[in-house]
């Protein structure tokens, strides 16, 4: 399958792919060297990125070229670039591969972006658990700095770029861009209210651009091979490739970098199809914060921004979670809500109080303590959170709940009416505990 792994994961099968030598052997740093030599007009680079159709790969899918044009390059104040490597969206494991296997391409992307912004300092904020990744990135920066690809006066061009790796402290919400800035400043990781936007008032109050790891790692390839080449990989409104992380009830879970617009069916096939010959029940296409899509809608779905949006969900981070017909949707949702209850930063009232309330109702349902009307209550509480918080975490709680209930309301009603007995379990005895290992974390909660 030659369409696989062409951009961010292009060198993953080379030996010691994370070294400078390996990266340069496939043409790495050629775009950066060219920019340094020719002093390319940053506006031309932005044009290229716009033309390539590259969109933010972190989840929101904002057009990268447009974002880059927000920072006033001529503003004489210190500007910053922040690379968001705090990959924490449940079901997502794409940046981890870039950081461990292809760190130089990311660093080249950071350098190019920083050059475009006129930023002399860039931070690569890694998730707290990414110890190996941190070491690889540190080593890569050291190698690149030794070759003067980074540092002061890069290759005699007069361009200064310093990159720092920063290891987080284990909070999901720091993946939100303004919470990341707070964390970088040494404060509690809590999102800021926007406006002001980071492009005006970001890190330490200075103009700041924040991009996802995959977005930045795509940049050198775009400049090497041309914007047209990249755009043509994908569909009309979704240029290039995207890394999808297939998890859940498939035979061969894995990470695949495929052109945007690849049919979901093909992707499912790459992952070896549904396990044990079972039937597909539902899909979360872009990490657990996105809405659920049922089996019927998913089968003709193309994996690009617009087609998934037309199904009522979003491409998100590319964490595709496959659920087969043995999945109890109440349990699945409860499992997800436990995560959100744990990770709410506690700043805004609806999210702080609502996350625990939603989780509590779901636990009651599973424990057989729910009362008639609790499904409506669950739905109402989730709806009340949506749109009323500082950051998108409110939606990340609300959307899964409302979409799960919208699509599988009968399962929720059944479990309430039957004292905690799952509808799936009653159809498929024993299936209940296969799904997400509920008993195990129920015990942990008690600890």
């Amino acid at each position, binding site marked *: 399958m030659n369409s696989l792994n062409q951009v961010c994961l292009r060198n993953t099968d080379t030996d010691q792919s994370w070294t400078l030598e390996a990266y340069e052997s496939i043409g790495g740093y050629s775009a950066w060297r060219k920019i340094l030599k020719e002093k390319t007009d940053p506006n031309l680079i932005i044009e290229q990125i716009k033309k390539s159709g590259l969109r933010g790969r972190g989840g929101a899918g904002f057009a990268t070229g447009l974002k880059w044009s927000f920072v006033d390059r001529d503003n004489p104040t210190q500007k910053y670039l922040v690379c968001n490597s705090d990959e924490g969206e449940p079901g997502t494991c794409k940046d981890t591969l870039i950081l461990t296997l292809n760190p130089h391409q990311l660093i080249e992307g950071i350098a190019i972006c920083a050059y475009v912004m006129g930023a002399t300092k860039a931070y690569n904020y890694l998730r707290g658990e990414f110890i190996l990744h941190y070491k690889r990135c540190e080593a890569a920066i050291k190698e690149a700095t030794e070759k003067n690809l980074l540092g002061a006066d890069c290759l005699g061009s007069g361009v200064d770029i310093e990159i720092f790796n920063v290891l987080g402290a284990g*909070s999901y*919400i720091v993946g939100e861009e303004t919470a990341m800035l707070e964390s970088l400043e040494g404060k*509690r990781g809590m999102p800021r*209210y926007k*406006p002001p936007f980071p492009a005006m008032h970001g890190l330490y109050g200075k103009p700041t651009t924040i991009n996802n790891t995959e977005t930045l790692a795509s940049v050198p390839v775009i400049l090497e091979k041309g914007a047209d080449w990249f755009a043509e990989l994908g569909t009309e409104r979704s240029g290039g490739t995207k890394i999808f992380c297939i998890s859940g009830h498939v035979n061969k879970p894995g990470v695949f970098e495929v052109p945007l617009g690849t049919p979901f069916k093909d992707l499912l096939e790459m992952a070896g199809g549904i396990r044990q010959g079972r039937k597909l029940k539902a899909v979360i296409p872009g990490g657990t914060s996105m809405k659920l899509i049922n089996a019927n809608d998913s089968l003709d779905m193309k994996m690009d921004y617009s087609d998934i949006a037309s199904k009522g969900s979003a491409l998100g981070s590319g964490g595709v979670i496959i659920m087969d017909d043995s999945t109890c949707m109440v349990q699945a949702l409860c499992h997800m809500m436990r995560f959100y*209850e*744990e*990770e*709410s*930063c*506690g*700043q*805004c*009232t*609806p*999210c*702080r*109080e*609502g*996350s*625990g*309330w939603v989780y*509590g*109702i779901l636990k*009651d349902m599973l424990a057989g303590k729910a*009362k008639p009307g609790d499904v409506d*209550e669950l739905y109402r509480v989730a709806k*009340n959170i949506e*749109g*009323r*918080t*500082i950051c998108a975490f409110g939606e990340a709680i609300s959307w899964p709940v409302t979409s799960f209930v919208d699509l599988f309301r009968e399962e929720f009603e059944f479990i309430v009416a039957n004292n905690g007995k799952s509808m799936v379990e009653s159809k498929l005895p024993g299936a209940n505990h296969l799904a997400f290992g509920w008993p195990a974390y129920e015990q942990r909660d008690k600890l």
Partner: protein
Amino acid sequence: MTKNSKLTVEIDGKKLEFKPGQSIIEVADANGIYIPRFCYHKNLSVVANCRMCLVEVEKAPKALPACATPVSEGMVVKTKSKATRLAQKAVMEFLLINHPLDCPICDQGGECELQDVSMGYGATGSNFRQSKRAVKDEDLGPLISTVMTRCIHCTRCVRFGREIAGVSELGACGRGGHMEIGTYLKDGVKSELSGNMIDLCPVGALTSKPFKFKGRSWGFGQHKGVSMHDCIGTNLFVHVHNTNIGHESKVMRVLPRENDLINETWIADRDRFSYMGLDKNRISQPMVKRNGTWIEVDWQEALTIVAQKMEQAKAAPQECAMIMSPSIPTEEAYIANQWWNELGMAYSSHQIKLTDSRDYKFTGAPVSGVKMSEISDWNSLVLIGSNPKSQQPILGWNIRKSQLAGAKVTHLSSIRNALNYEADQIISHPYDWLSILMGQAKKSGVKLDKMWDDVPVNKQLALTVPSLWVLGEQITMHPQGSLIRYLVNEIAKKTKGKVLTLTEGANTLGCWLASDSLGAEGVSYPASELLSQEKGLYWLHQVHPEQDAQFGAHSQNSLDKAFVIATNSFWSEKMKQYADIVLPVSTYSEMSGTIVNVFGNVQKFQAAVMPYEAARPAWKVFRVLGNLAEFEGFDYQSIDDITSKINFDFTDKIGYDYQPVSVNYLEKDGVLQTAVTHPLSCDAIVRNSKPLQDTVTQSIISISPDTLKEIGIDPKVKAVSALQSGIKRTYELNVTDDVAYQCAELSGGYSQFLPDLMAKVTLEGIYND
């Protein structure tokens, strides 16, 4: 857009003008449109976390927080629409699910923002069936009581600490529903402004500990007060029980009164909790000492005895001295001086701590022409012998504001002060300050008389920009005070600077104006001089010289030998020994009056409660004494009659035009005790407030290693004994480089204080355990 065109926004159908940068809530507040809020406070940063102020804005996809959304031209805001109500009710429901329903036993009840807003936006019942969150309480010290289960995480207290008090004592730990506000260090809250967190807390999580379970806000009457504990004149509200519903007349609590010119919405803990001392140790009846025992007499008898005594004393006016507190209302100072003058007495003083008074009668009113609001405009501030953070906390906060706005602050002091702003601190012996100022004077090009040629020049201070010079308590008590004031004024004149001399007590300027209105040119003899002269009769008005004067031991010695008549509200232990007649007078909560702060703000305050037992307002006592002596002009019907006699217009009396005639040289001999009066020992009310005294930590003496070596004390000893004027006390030893050579600084409770301030002390190490 042209300059003159007005920007308008539509809120609830009304077209309203706004200034660029204003938020929706600011425009709404300015126009009387109420939007509910918890986290928003006009004097704190905006965090938009409570979400209560969500409002519908046309063309916005979702409801926006009114506190954090800037208004723009043509914006249409609907604060009463269905979408707004839905959003606000949803937030209210979330806020209430974990909030305990303990309003009946909550001190905030009746003045609780959550209670109020929930009346309008809350549901009648709750669908929440899980168990409510419970949070462990933390002991924040003697002033703030906590019930953290009630906390709604608005973070006003956290922001107050970070932004206003300048010390992050409270913060948030834990995430999501497990988030808790606390100190983490479990070390209490120590800021001198901490009580403001009680006002800021919109619920009953932080309440006043001394006021705990004492009363309900709806049962109180409210009177305007002004702080009597420093020269800033912080504005207060004094809350008292409504006596018409059968309560005793008593001050229940003190809260800030907003005044943007002085204290905005903040007051110091000292101003807030001093009321707890109002009823302690009071003199309840006029008393006369006969054969060494105190006998209660009625007012008539007491006044007759006093009148007779004064009739005799008139024969030797040189032998009589009246010492007044500088913290009495102007009217009291006026009538007391009027009566004293009529008696033909020469010596009266409202300057308890002033030491070097050579310049005093040559200069104008003790006011600098500096306004509080202008402090943040200065780019450079120099504080000499002053630590407003502890002595005048509201001024300290203004200096912090100024520093945050970019001003450079320089401290010249004998110890490195723990500050809540960045400052250059020059640590040197107070006797070297004249030399340091000489250096600055030379640099600024000040022309000086020949007699200054012999003063050594020290170039540690070398400012080049116009500065505001703040002279503090250590200068008041400095033996070269007049020379320092002269030099600083000359430097300021030469460099376009200004001088702010912090005065004693609350009303030094008022007392000066009272004397001036009587034609005495505002002159008062420094009390330290009068108290050292061993007069035959001392009249003490609202002072306890053994604690209030600079040389306590000295003063007490004179008082012990003399006949002492005291008009005072409070007893002190020593007063029982030295006084011969005491007349109980009202303290500030029991009378009305006018005081003038160091910035020249003339402020009136009202009596809040009835006088304590037989105590009477002092002006009435002096009026009767005047009547008994059949003096003219003592027929005042009310305090307003006295007020009208006083000329409060001092604009033509500002100015410093003293020329020193000689320079006195000071020898650094042994160790100088450099501490000034402890801020919580500043007057009898504060000294009697138990909650405030409970915040005072252990008595410590700080000395540098060099000094210890010089006086031969092993730096490893745990304690030292300090001897002054025959009084010996023991202190824990703190060896630090932050104290100037040959200086020792005390910190600790007032009862452990040495009798003399800014004076020599003899130290000895205590070697046995």
